[in-house]
């Protein structure tokens, strides 16, 4: 807690503060050039006409049905894969942390989660084509062993459900990785105290477990949402441009100005930043609340 004294403890020389700032100058210059300015350019451009005059027309044009549809299907896929990933990931993490399983399960699960949460992009699309595609192994197994023709049910990997199932492959392990520390924070004493006072397992979760975990669960779900909202490569490799999600639309816009308005493209990007921004800010806020219990 005595952080502010460090500067005095360690005088930075005759030039004082400016000299100390030179040490972080490269970092700030880099962040400005390759993170902040490029984003700011798009944000400003979203409020400009092609001639550079101020306008709100680009934002209004985002209301075009095809653009709204693109945002909407992106939001749906991200929400479905975030919720699914959060629920399944939470059960999986809880099973490993507090399920009374052999000790080797937990480190194994963590290692596999580390790999799977990073196994995204184009190769993931290939893996799911080999699994649930028309000639995929699971499709074949279902047809051969159970006489169940997956594709006659209207299932298609290049669809909402298909993309959600594919995203779950990195969402579930990501949830396991984020939630495990929060589950470790559930103190054994709380559970013991509750059961001494006669609480059932259900009552324990309803009155203690879930209220304490709630911010972590919500926050992690939002992080998962933002994680899949910005994803491009898996969807592109899986569906080409047949599925109209907002990242694919933006990709086509960058490639060939399919909206026939550069500044509308900037507004499209701004909309994406706002959506991922809001869910990340909410995540950070919820994480702050969650940390109250771990002190």
């Amino acid at each position, binding site marked *: 807690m005595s952080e502010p004294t460090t500067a005095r403890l360690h005088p930075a020389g005759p030039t004082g503060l400016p000299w100390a700032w030179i040490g972080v100058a490269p970092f700030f210059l880099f962040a400005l050039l390759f993170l902040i300015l490029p984003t700011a350019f798009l944000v400003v*451009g979203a409020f400009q006409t092609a001639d550079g005059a101020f306008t709100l027309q680009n934002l209004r044009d985002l209301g075009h049905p095809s653009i709204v549809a693109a945002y909407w299907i992106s939001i749906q896929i991200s929400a479905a894969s975030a919720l699914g990933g959060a629920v399944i990931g939470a059960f999986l993490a809880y099973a490993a942390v507090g399920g009374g399983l052999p000790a080797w399960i937990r480190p194994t699960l963590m290692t596999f989660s580390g790999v799977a949460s*990073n196994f995204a992009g184009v190769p993931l699309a290939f893996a799911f084509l080999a699994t649930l595609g028309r000639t995929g192994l699971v499709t074949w197994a279902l047809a051969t062993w159970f006489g169940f023709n997956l594709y006659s049910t209207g299932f298609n990997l290049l669809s909402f459900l298909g993309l959600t199932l594919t995203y779950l492959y990195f969402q579930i392990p990501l949830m396991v990785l984020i939630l495990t520390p929060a589950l470790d924070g559930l103190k054994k004493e709380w559970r013991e105290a509750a059961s001494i006072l006669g609480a059932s397992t259900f009552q324990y979760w309803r009155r203690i477990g879930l209220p304490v975990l709630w911010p972590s669960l919500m926050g992690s779900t939002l992080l998962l949402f933002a994680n899949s909202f910005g994803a491009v490569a898996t969807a592109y490799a899986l569906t080409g441009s047949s599925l109209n999600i907002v990242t694919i639309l933006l990709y086509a816009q960058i490639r060939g100005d399919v909206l026939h308005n550069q500044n509308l493209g900037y507004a499209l990007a701004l909309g994406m930043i706002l959506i991922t921004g809001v869910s990340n800010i909410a995540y950070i806020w919820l994480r702050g609340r969650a940390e109250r219990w771990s002190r």
Partner: protein
Amino acid sequence: MKKSTFGPWLAVVLGAAYFLIPLIATVEFSMRMKRGEYSFEAYRVVLGDPRFQASFSYSVALALATIVIGVLLVVPTAYWVQLRLPKLRPVVEFITLLPLVIPAIVIVFGYLRIYNSESWLPLTDSARGTDLLLAFGYVTLALPYMYRSVDTGLRAIDVRTLTEAAESLGAGWATILFKVIFPNIRSAILSGSFLTFAIVIGEFTFAALLDRPAFGPYLQLVGANRAYEPAALAIIAFVVTWACMGLIQVFGAARGTAQK
């Protein structure tokens, strides 16, 4: 309180199935290239493809450049913030988290607009310039992971005492950084580096939109045109990811700190 372990076992078994079945399916699919028998034909074709070799080595070189630039940028900054400017920590942490907030496709869109041929810094005019821009872009993408890894490493050592000891022996700042700080947080730097490598090696969006011949766009191209080779490539990519994560475990074991 003795609980039944049926539910937890079920969760773990289902989770393992979700993780393993696509891998098994991909391995099986990749070996189907020769009709009527299993073979490694698809791997032979892929590994023998000159474009595979070219794009893979391009991405490896780019990943190494990204790691070098990233380490040289992040380590001195995190060190300096910890030692002299602790008040800046929240600001620096916030900036390093921004690449998780701003989607990669948006960042590269901005690059294409402010570093094009008409701009004040026309990086995309030449192939070398674009390579540099791509490496900087990857440093940005890896920033959250690299910074967090290095920062965790720095917190685990006594930066102040080490610095003062080195100073009292007459060491300059370069000596302190490279001969004292770097060796002490070597495992943290290596963890960040392997994670960076795993992110960069198959990255698609940046490379495709900057139009560079990297591994990610090559994967996409093969996927659009071939049947069995994509499965073989997916397995190769998976092995690379697995190797990176395994190396993180090996080097991180000494510290016992979880990544990510």
